[in-house]
Every structure is written in structure tokens, then in C-alpha cells.
């Protein structure tokens, strides 16, 4: 069965590259342009992994993560923060909140793919 990935980011150019990459890896790809759209998608879908930006208008990445952690049906969903915030304190905070990985922008596409695949195996 196809693995499912949800990409949450408010920058369309970045989303486009990730979408292309994971489709090529044979993922089923969901796109959310901000946190609230992500919550909407998560209501009815159970992706295997979520790529999550932090600085987004309205519902930010932290809140989205909290939602995922509190939802029983999403307990197996992995969460990877993908953000420009790269201070040590930010990384610590993200992992403390329960993210499985914390990757920073700008990123290497290959690295993202390998990290995601590693997490899913």
C-alpha cells in the first residue's frame, strides 16, 4: 500500500518541490497551506508522516503537533518539523513537544527523503 505523507507549509514554491519529490517516491501526498487546513485534512485522513512548518499564520506548527499528539487515531503518525527556526532552543522545544525529527531550512531534498524513509521503516 502507498505510504501517505502530509506536507504543511505556507510557501507554495517549497511545497511544490516536496510534492514532486514524494510523488516520485510513490507516496500519496496531501498538501496543507497552513495549520488550519492541516487540521481539516487530519480529521478524515491518517497519514503515516507529517512534514510540518512552524511559522504559519493562525494555527502554527506547534498547535498542529499538539492536535496530532492528542488524537487517538493519529498515534502512529510520525511528525517531522521542517522549519527555518534553527536555534538550539527552538530545536529542543520542538523535540520536547514530541516531534520525531527536527529538520531545518534550507534543506537538501535527498536528506529529507532519507530521513523520512528511515523514520517509516
Amino acid at each position, binding site marked *: 500500500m502507498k505510504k501517505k505523507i502530509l506536507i504543511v507549509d505556507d510557501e507554495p514554491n*517549497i511545497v511544490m518541490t516536496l510534492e*514532486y519529490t514524494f510523488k516520485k517516491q510513490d507516496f500519496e501526498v496531501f498538501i496543507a497551506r497552513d495549520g488550519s487546513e492541516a487540521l481539516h485534512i487530519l480529521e478524515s485522513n491518517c497519514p503515516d508522516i507529517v512534514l510540518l512548518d512552524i511559522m504559519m499564520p*493562525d494555527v502554527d506548527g506547534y498547535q498542529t503537533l499538539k492536535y496530532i499528539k492528542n488524537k487517538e487515531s493519529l498515534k502512529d503518525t510520525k511528525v517531522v518539523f521542517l522549519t527555518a527556526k534553527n536555534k538550539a532552543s527552538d530545536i529542543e522545544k520542538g523535540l520536547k513537544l514530541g516531534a520525531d525529527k527536527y529538520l531545518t531550512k*534550507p534543506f537538501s*531534498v535527498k536528506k529529507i527523503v532519507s530521513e523520512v524513509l528511515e523514520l517509516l521503516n
Partner: protein
Amino acid sequence: MSNYALISIIICYLAILFYIAFLAEKNSKSKWVNNPLIYTLSLAVYCSAWTYYGSVGIAANSGISFLPIYLGPVMAVPLWIVVLRKIMRISKQHKISSLADFISLRYGNNRFLGALITVVCVFGILPYISLQLKAISETFEIMADEASYVSTNIFDDSTFYIAVLLAVFAAFFGTQATDASEKHRGIVVSVAFESILKLVFFLIIGVYVTYFLFDGTSDIYNKISITPNFESLTKISGLEAGFDWFFMMMISFIAIFLLPRQFQVSVLENNREKHLKQAIWLFPLYLLLFNIFVIFIAWGGKLTFGNTVNAEYFTLLLPLQNDHVFLALLVFLGGFSAVISMVVVSTLALSTMVSNNLVIPYGFLDKFIKGHPDKNSNYIKTIRRISIFCIIITAYVFYINFSIELSLYSIGLISFVIISQLAPSFFIGLFWNRGSSKAAIIGIIIGFLITLYTLVLPFTIEAFTGIHDFTNHGLFNISALKPYALFGIDFLSPPAHAFFWSMSANVLCYLVFSLTSKGNYRERNYAEMFVDSSNYSSLQDSALVWKGEAYVSDIKNVLNKFLGEDRTQRALNLFFMKYKIPTNTQMADARLINFSEKLLTGSIGSASAKILIASAVKEEQVSLVEVLKILEESKETLANNKVLREKSEELSMLALKLKQANEELISKDKQKDEFLDTVAHELKTPVTGIRAATELLMDDDDEMPAEIKTQFLNNMLNDSDRLSRLINNILDFEKLSRGRNQLNIKQNGIRSSIKKAIIGVQQLAVNKGVTIINDNLVDFKFSYDEDRILQVLTNLISNALKFTEPNKGKIIIECKLINNYVEVYVIDNGKGIPDEDFDFIFDKFYQSKNQNTVKPEGSGLGLAICKQILEQHNGKIWAKKGNKNGATFVFMLPFK
């Protein structure tokens, strides 16, 4: 109207009063219950049946001489701010629960004085209460069909049952707490309610008589002025009547302070000092309203009935005569209200005095010392309840046996004169620290005896025997001893005459004995505290001087008997905390003694409290010199404390300022961090896009469709543009905010600048199908940096373009000349600015949340830069609220 209908109406009415009192008691904290209006209306308990019915009687028979009884209080009212406020403060501080308590405490909790005052009050007020019952019974008789209503058999007499119901009411709402200094909100609110009713109903009957039965005031005047003896009804006749007026006003002046019911509502039931402010103008207004129609009702009645009926009941008889039974019923209920409020409050006040100043200190103290706290509190309540019933029943018996013959007015005045005997020890004692208890006692007794001789005795003898020998010839036929004309003073009315003699003797005794005999130290101590209350109130408990040996545990035992162990422990803990004394202290000091006396005062009266505490401690005599020395010392300590407190306040102010400065620094630091974070984020975002796309294109294994390839390349181009724009903006912003950027100020035409800006964005607008309108531009030349202002204009217009819809968008640019500046408007019909964004849009990196889901291009610095440019020009930029169909930006440039 039938007896039964009338009785059921009365019962319904009483039920309503119970309900109101009950509600008020339940919501005793609500603002409806504690407002100045309620306070003022409760003061109107002054207007009893005497006012309601009696005034009309006097007005009909002796003209305007009903007025001084209301002028006295009106004159007293301005003094309230000084006198009543002082009394209130002292009463609150010492938990005073009655007039007797107040006066006896001033003279060192003198037990005998308290009892004497109680006796005087009971003697003065009982007939007064019975007079109210009389009014009920007589008006009932007028209202009822069956004339044989007044029965000699108590159990057939409705007045008896009404009296009992009133006693139940007073007992129920008056003894909820053992501590009589607690407020009785239920009673007060019901009194206020009754005050409204009686005034409204009286005004209704006034209007009815004046404007319906007659043709207005001048009609009545014209008709009455042709009757014989009219002149005497409208004048103060001569010097002698002038004296009468003077003394009457003095009597009522005193009464408004000292009638137990007035003291109860004005001092004891007051819970906010500031309510006085409204009361001092509202209360006289109330009295004025009450008296407006008195004279017209009296004349109207006189014209209708002549002298055939009791003029006191004109208000009832006039509507009945014209078959307006309902109106008469209203009047009846108004009078009934006046009676109830007077009877209930008077009884409450008297019963507290009787229990706390007579019964308990003279008989029950030993019992209390042995008793159990719960039982004691029950005893106290029971004593008060029995007192209430006894007072009302006695008043009833008095009415049955005596006052049937007497008029409302005469008994009322006798009461006032008797109560006046308390005035010297009360008023002088408040302001003169030499006044002693011995003097107070002698003054009151002498004054009281003289009143008995000159007023009560002859009045009673005449009323019941009809023999005038005593009045006409004096005791033992000595003409100098004629009761109404003592020592030849024969030109005053009996009450004024009695007042004159009793008061002169009373004041004289008070002064003479105060000057010749010094009170003991305790008395002097309290005298100081009362007279100099503003100074000592801040000293609180330590203002009482006391020397001796006392153990905390002994005092605790006494308190336990009355308050129970829990309350005692709580009170003592508070006390120890307040004065920072360790809780295991063994020896009690003066403060604790005073504190404990105060705790007990509300429940059992100040005299008993003193005796009880004294029984637990070994007291030593203190000399007067010591008293004054200790008081001086406490004042000094207080002053020192004040200096210390001021110093420490200064210090904490400084600390606060330091803290604020520190917080400001931290917040500036944080702002800088946030700015850098945002810059980093904004720079990284396009870099990320470029990097990812480049990587994908590089690794391309020819599987990538051509259109995606183009898309990626396009994205890379856009991201690069965005990046360079951002870098330019940041550099601009940084320069501007450091003020490094020198403006290149030259003479320019604003119109041509705007045109230039529009040309710069014209192509974009055409592409998007947005029209730019600029018909309304003034041309004006003045100095500014054109490049910078172009930057502002371009930014505003591009923003407008960004937020308008393709092919529908419209942008209007206007330029106006106002006084000494130019205002430029950029108005669009786009999405507009959400309310929550208005305050922030000029902040750096603030981007509206209301944007399209796809991020519009922008660095988030545009408006922040505009703001800085205008500030450098001493101008301003803002977004105007109120444009419902889009956004309006305005900037203002002053002429250089």
C-alpha cells in the same frame, strides 16, 4: 368597605412587607440594598402617623404651626456632615448598638447612665408608639362599615392583632444576629419601601383634594380667606408665638438626632458614610414634598366639614365623602405604612436598649458567665424578642387605657420633649471633654423630672379627670409653681414651656457638675476618645488606657461564653496578627482588653462588656496624668510609624521603577531578537525554494515533465527576485532607522511626483485590469525628498494593487492642501484591513492574516519603511478606518 376585606388587605400588605424584608436580608450585599436612596428613604421613618395625619389636624386648627417640626430637621441636616459623621465613626469603631450605649460609653461605660437613658427613652417613646396604634385603630374605624370596631375586649380588636404582627416582624428581622450592632437590612429596606408609599399616597390625596375637589390652590385660598378667623391661620402671631416656633424647631432639631428610631436608621444602620452626601439634600426634599399639600388638604377639609369631624382624618374623610373608597384605601395604607415603619424601628431600637443596657447588665451577667455559648446567644436573642413584644404590648395597653382621648400631635410633642433631655449629655459630651458621667446623670434626671411636672403630669390629669385646678393654681396653690407657667412665664405653649425649663435646668446641672466633679480615669479616657475622635480613631485599640494584670486565657474564657470557641479563636488570631504579637502570649495588654470589650459590646452592651472583662482581670487605678501621658505617647508612636511607612513607601517606589527599567531593557532585547529571527526566516524561505528546486533539476533523470521543469525554473526566478527585494528593503530599513540616510530635500511638485509613481506601476495595473483614478490632484510645490516619497507612493499603490481583485479593482489617488500640510490619499476597493490589524500594519514584518491563502509577495517591511520616511519628513502615515469597501491609506507631509 367591610371589616373582612380591610383586614385581608392589611394582611396582604404585611405579607408583602415581610417578603421585601426577607429579600433584602437575603441579598444584603447587593447594590440595591446598599444605596444612598435606601438610606435617605429610611431616614424618612421620621414621618410617622403624626406627620401623615397629625399635620393636617394642626394646620386646620392652628394654621402653619405644623411647620417647625420639619424646619428643625431641615436646619439640622447641614450639620450632619460634621456631627453625624463623627457619631457614625465612633459608633462603628466601638460597635455601638444603641443610643444608650453611645452615651454611656462616652462617660466610661457607665452602667447606671445607660439604664437611665433606656428608661427615659422607654418613657418617652411608649406613648408615642401607642399613638401610632391609635391612628391605626381610628383610621380602621373610619374605613370600616361597622362603626363599633373599637372594642374593649382585646381579642375582638384588630389593632391588637396588628400590633402582634408588627412585634413578630420586628422580632424576626431585628434579632437575626446576636450582635445588635449588625445591620438589619431587611427592616431598613422595608422602611424605605414604606417611605415611598406614604409619600406617594399623601401626594395623591393632596393633588386630589386640591385639583379635583377644588379648583387648584388659589380656589381653596379664595374660599377659605373669607371665613372668620382666617388671618390667625396664616401668621405667626406675635413675639410669643415666635418663641414657640423657636423652641419647637429646637425640639425637632434635637429629635432628628436623638429619637431612638432616628439614631437607629441614621447611625446604626448606615453602612457607607458617603451616603450622607445624597441624604443631606434628598431628605429635606422629602420633607418638603410631604408638606406641600398639608395646608390645602386642611383648608379643603375645613371648607367641606367645618369643625364637625376630627381634622386629623381629613385625608380619609374627604375621598370617602365623595365615594372614592379606593382613594381612601390608598391613604389608609399610606398611614399604615407610616405607622409600621415607626413602630418597628422604634421597637427595635428600644428593645436593644432594654436588653443591652437594662436587663443584661442588671441581672443576667452572672448567668452568662456560667452558661454555654450557644445558650448565651439564645438567651440574648430571647431577651430582645421578649422586650420587643413587651414594648408593643405595653404600648397597646397604654393606648387602650389612656391615649384614646389624646391627639396625635400632643403626645408626639411630649415624646420629643422627653427625648430632648438626652441632648446636653449627648451633644456637649461630643465636643467637650470635661463633661462627666455624674453631671450627665444629674442633668437628665432633673430635666426629666421638670418635664414630668410641667408637661406630663398636668396633661394626664387634665385628660383623665378634666379638673384644671392643678394647671390653673399650681402645686399647693402657689402661683409660681403653675405647671404651664412656671415662675410667671405664661406666654409659651406647654411643650415649649416645658422644653425651656427642663432644658435650662438640664444644661445648667450638666455644666456645673462637670466643672466641679472630675470623672475617673476611664471616663476621661473615653471623653478624650470621643471628643478628639479624628485623632484617636487611627490609634484604634491602643487609645484605651488600662493598667493591671490580666491573662489572655482568662479573657479568652469570657469571650468563649458569648462568641463560642471558634469565633473567639478567629477574632484573637486576627488581633494577634494585626499587632504582630506572638499567639502564645500570656499577659494581656490594654489593646486586648479594649478589643475584647468591643467584641462583646454588640451582643450585650458596653456597660456589661466592661463589667464582664473587668471580672476576668485585676485592674489598677490609673491617674489622669498617666492617661494623658499614655495617650500622648501612643500618638507619638503613631507619628513615628507614619514617617517609617513613608520611607518604606519611597523605597518600594524606587524598587518598582528599577524593575520597570529592567523590564524595558529586556523587552527591547527581545524585540531585537525577534527582528533578527524574522529577517532570518524571510531570507531563508526563498533560499530554501531555490535550493530545493536546483537540487531536483540537477538530479533530473529526464523523467521530469517539461512543464514542471519550467515551473521550477520560474519559481527560482521569483524567489531570487524576492530575495534581492528583501535585501534592498532590509538595508533601506536599517539605514532609515539609524537615521543615516540623509534626505535629499528639494523643491518638488507633489502632483508630478504622484504622476511619476503611477507611471511606475501602470503596466502592472493594466496587466491586472485595475483602473487608477487621479483626477483630484492639487498642484503644489514644496520641499521634500522626491525619491523617498516616490518609494512611499509606489509602495502604497502596489499594496492596493495586490489586494484588489483582477478586472474589478479601482484605485483612487487624491491630494489635498490643508492649512500647512499636504494630505495624499490612496483608496482602493480591495479586501480592506481587518479591525484587529489596524494597530500593527506599520510594524515591521507584520503581514495581515487576512491575505489570500497564497502568500502575496512582500517583504513585510514596506509600510514600516513608509512610516520611517514620513517620520523623517516630520509627516505622518496612517490607515483610515471606516472604508467598508476597501482600504484607505493617508499620508501627510508638512511644508518645510
